[in-house]
């Protein structure tokens, strides 16, 4: 009977997860986009609902109609029109960054409008009370209603998509929007799909908020974690998603009844509180063949237009490099209080550069750099604590991250996922890695309890430490340089442009990818070690997995293949964070990421294009040599190459 009671509690948890997973999957089925921003959308709607009822004192029913009938679908329509429609040809990576951008943007908005405060008085649409079951068990009405909602959505949508004309048209649009637009009103169907997906997010948010606290992060994270359920359902089957979510929910509560020897209790606790994250991680390891539909490989779509020729002497980047060095050296003359804030810049810049290496150079989307950064920091602290000289530990710690990066890279990068499905797979896998590391290492007192972080003599003064940070950043940039120029840089560009062709040229693409990914992990570790040393404390929040998402979006905005852009981006992020209220930096990054589809390659590429334009006269004679017909052919060829997915 005790276990049955636990199972009913688990059912409640499972219902919430099922609602998230079904919403996520339904959106995916009707729009073709794996909407990472589903959770933030739900949060936003829940906050609006709170505002309507608690601040404007609207009746509950009116507020519900307003939020679920107008606001939620409206957000979907606006996002479809302004963000997703312009991106329909930009492939999966572009869409992924856009959804990430929407997530960051919506969180930023919540922070700006509501100060990011959490509320416990979110209005509830569900009836209170519960049904008495035999054996003194009670089943809350709320759980019953949620179960019904979830089942209804799953059954109705499955029927709609499989058995109706509209469903057929929706599937056609999801499959190939351009092709379908000749036969069906594709734009309207897509808009309808987004409105529906956003409505589901609204339903999820409004139903959740009273159960959990209304809080910007927790709901967003809940959705990100339930992606495991969606993966288990191979992103296709709604019924499987429901069953899996309920099963995991029940398993999670049943695990609370497991009481092993005291020393293992912490681990068991970590297991049952993080079962969804574990499922996501495990599902990605064992189930590679997802029904993920997308049309761009790795990070290809992020910088295709801005792809640069590596071996050419880059006159344009000389000038910013000089200016940047001057700006970075400025804090050395700041007074201590301002210098303190600046300490975060080089550390974050090293992490950003690692993202450029993984995503920009190797073409592998990595949302998990926060995990590697934190591990680098932790290893450094442990080594220093074990008596290693601090300067040695600063480099040895991150070096220890390299094999871990290699291991995860070897598992995920070369998994038998079809090339065109790799972007989303990698995004999920790297995020899951960071989440698992955060929950099972950074959140465990066994590993992070009682850590003493102190800088050694000579570097206790912030000026000297800042100088050391700059030296580390320079080292990172030098390493990155050889990945960007010379034979290695050429091989990486080749790999990004066409993996099959790179293989035919004798490049060991699998090894190369893992190698570069592992290097990126090590660099992230160095950045993390610097962050921790700068703060003189190991803060797990510095390495929160959601932080990794923000970092990725920020780097994408500045151009994933621009190391200098990453450094500027880090400085800008810290400056905005220090100089304004919380939420502004997220909002800016979100807007930037959302607009990326229109400005491929980000700010870095825009600067580069401006530079290219300035030196264009040098290149002109070649094009001029062609006849008008020849130019047309060349243009057509160029267009063809651009449209072709990089595989």
């Amino acid at each position, binding site marked *: 009977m005790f276990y049955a009671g636990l199972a009913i509690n688990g059912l409640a948890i499972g219902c919430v997860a099922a609602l998230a997973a079904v919403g996520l999957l339904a959106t995916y089925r009707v729009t073709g986009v794996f909407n990472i921003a589903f959770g933030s959308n739900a949060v936003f709607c829940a906050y609006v609902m709170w505002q309507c009822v608690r601040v404007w004192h609207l009746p509950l029913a009116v507020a519900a109609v307003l939020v679920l009938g107008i606001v939620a679908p409206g957000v979907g329509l606006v996002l479809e029109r302004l963000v997703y429609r312009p991106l329909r040809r930009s492939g999966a990576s572009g869409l992924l960054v856009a959804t990430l951008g929407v997530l960051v943007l919506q969180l930023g908005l919540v922070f700006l409008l509501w100060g990011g405060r959490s509320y416990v008085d979110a209005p509830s649409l569900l009836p209170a009370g519960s049904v008495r079951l035999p054996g003194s068990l009670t089943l809350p009405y709320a759980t019953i209603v949620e179960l019904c909602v979830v089942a209804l959505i799953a059954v109705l949508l499955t029927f709609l998509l499989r058995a109706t004309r509209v469903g057929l048209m929706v599937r056609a649009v999801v499959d190939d929007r351009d092709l379908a637009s000749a036969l069906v009103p594709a734009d309207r169907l897509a808009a309808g799909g987004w409105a529906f997906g956003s409505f589901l997010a609204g339903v999820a948010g409004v139903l959740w908020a009273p159960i959990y606290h209304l809080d910007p992060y927790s709901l967003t994270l809940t959705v990100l974690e339930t992606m495991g359920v969606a993966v288990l359902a191979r992103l296709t089957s709604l019924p499987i998603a429901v069953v899996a979510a309920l099963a995991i929910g029940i398993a999670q509560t049943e695990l609370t009844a497991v009481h092993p020897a005291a020393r293992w209790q912490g681990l068991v606790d970590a297991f049952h509180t993080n079962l969804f994250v574990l499922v996501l991680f495990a599902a990605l390891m064992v189930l590679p063949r997802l029904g993920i539909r997308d049309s761009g490989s790795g990070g290809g779509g992020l910088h*295709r237009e801005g*792809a*640069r*020729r*590596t*071996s*050419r002497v880059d006159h344009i980047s000389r000038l910013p490099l000089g200016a940047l060095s001057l700006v970075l050296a400025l804090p050395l003359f700041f007074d201590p209080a301002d210098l303190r804030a600046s300490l975060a810049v080089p550390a974050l810049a090293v992490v950003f550069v690692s993202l450029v290496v993984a995503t920009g150079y190797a073409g592998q989307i990595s949302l998990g750099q926060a995990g590697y950064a934190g591990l680098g920091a932790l290893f450094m602290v442990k080594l220093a604590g074990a008596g290693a000289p601090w300067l040695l530990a600063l480099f040895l710690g991150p070096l220890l991250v390299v094999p871990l990066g290699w291991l995860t890279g070897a598992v995920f990068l070369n998994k038998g996922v079809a090339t065109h499905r790799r972007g989303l797979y990698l995004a999920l896998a790297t995020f899951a890695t960071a989440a698992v590391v955060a929950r099972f290492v950074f959140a465990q007192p066994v590993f992070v309890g009682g850590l003493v972080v102190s800088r050694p003599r000579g570097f206790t003064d912030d000026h000297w430490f800042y100088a050391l940070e700059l030296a580390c950043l320079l080292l990172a940039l*030098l*390493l990155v*340089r*050889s*990945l960007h120029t*010379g*034979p*290695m840089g*050429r*091989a990486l*560009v*080749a790999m*990004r*442009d*066409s993996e*099959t*062709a*790179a*293989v*035919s*040229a*004798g*490049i*060991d*693409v*699998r*090894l*190369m990818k893992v*190698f570069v990914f592992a*290097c990126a992990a090590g660099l992230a570790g160095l950045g993390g070690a610097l962050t921790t040393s700068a703060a003189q404390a190991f803060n797990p929040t510095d390495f929160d997995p959601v932080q990794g998402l923000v970092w990725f979006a920020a780097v994408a905005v500045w151009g994933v293949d621009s190391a200098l852009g990453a450094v500027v981006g880090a400085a800008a992020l810290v400056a905005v964070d220090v100089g304004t209220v919380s939420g502004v930096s997220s909002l800016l990054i979100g807007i930037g990421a959302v607009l990326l589809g229109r400005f491929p390659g980000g700010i870095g590429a825009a600067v580069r294009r401006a530079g290219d334009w300035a030196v264009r006269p040098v290149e002109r004679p*070649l094009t001029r040599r062609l006849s008008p017909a*020849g130019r047309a*052919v*060349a243009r057509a*060829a*160029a267009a063809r*190459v*651009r449209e072709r997915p990089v595989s």
Partner: protein
Amino acid sequence: MSGGRGFRGIQIRGLRRRFGGVTAVDDVDLDVPAGAVTALIGPNGAGKTTLFHCVTGLDAADAGTVTLAPHPDRPTVLLSGLPPHARARAGVAWTFQRIELFAGLTVAENIRVGAENRRGRPLLSGLLGLPDPRRAAVRATTVAVLERLGLTPLADVSAGSLPTGTMRLVELGRALAAEPAALLLDEPASGLDDHQIARLAEVLRALTADGLAILLVEHDIRFVTAVADRAYLMVAGRVLLSGTPDEVFASELARELYVGGS
């Protein structure tokens, strides 16, 4: 179809590849001798490209062996089981039916990538930016290949902005830059105009004179007749006929497939 001692080139023995219930390549024996152009012809769906992929390693054969005898004084390499990049390093180069170029690199860089990756180099030395000991040789090869294919004027043009015919040449250049012992071309003449086809034929003849083993998968009857020394007719996964191109195209079967069959 006997290889025997002293054979140089690619030998395919008992190659078989199944997809579900369909046998795309059914127990095929084929020799691609050095110093000659061997053409593989046949209707769509005959299994030509599958065979091609089984030789390059892009697809894994279910049975049979592929060996490469690169040079009289270098040992014969068993290609079967090697990953594609290792086959490339062993001396097999190939081009693609659907053009695969490095659009972000210039023409010269495309060719250079082919030249500098034919031998593995420790990744760490690349990361530390150590100078490449083969740098001068790579440069010389690149220049020579550009010259041979008439691409020198286009060396610094972005490969993504070229017309199709020139792209095919760049692809060929990248393959040649690896200084291979065997060259596999999958429909190299498609998308080329008559002038370019003539030029390609000329280049291929010159390459065979250098002792290269060339395997050609091609539809264009005139082109095959012009360049190939030997042709194999493949139908439904099996090699049914072989001989000089004229003999093969003159056969009842080929006429039925190529003229009457349409």
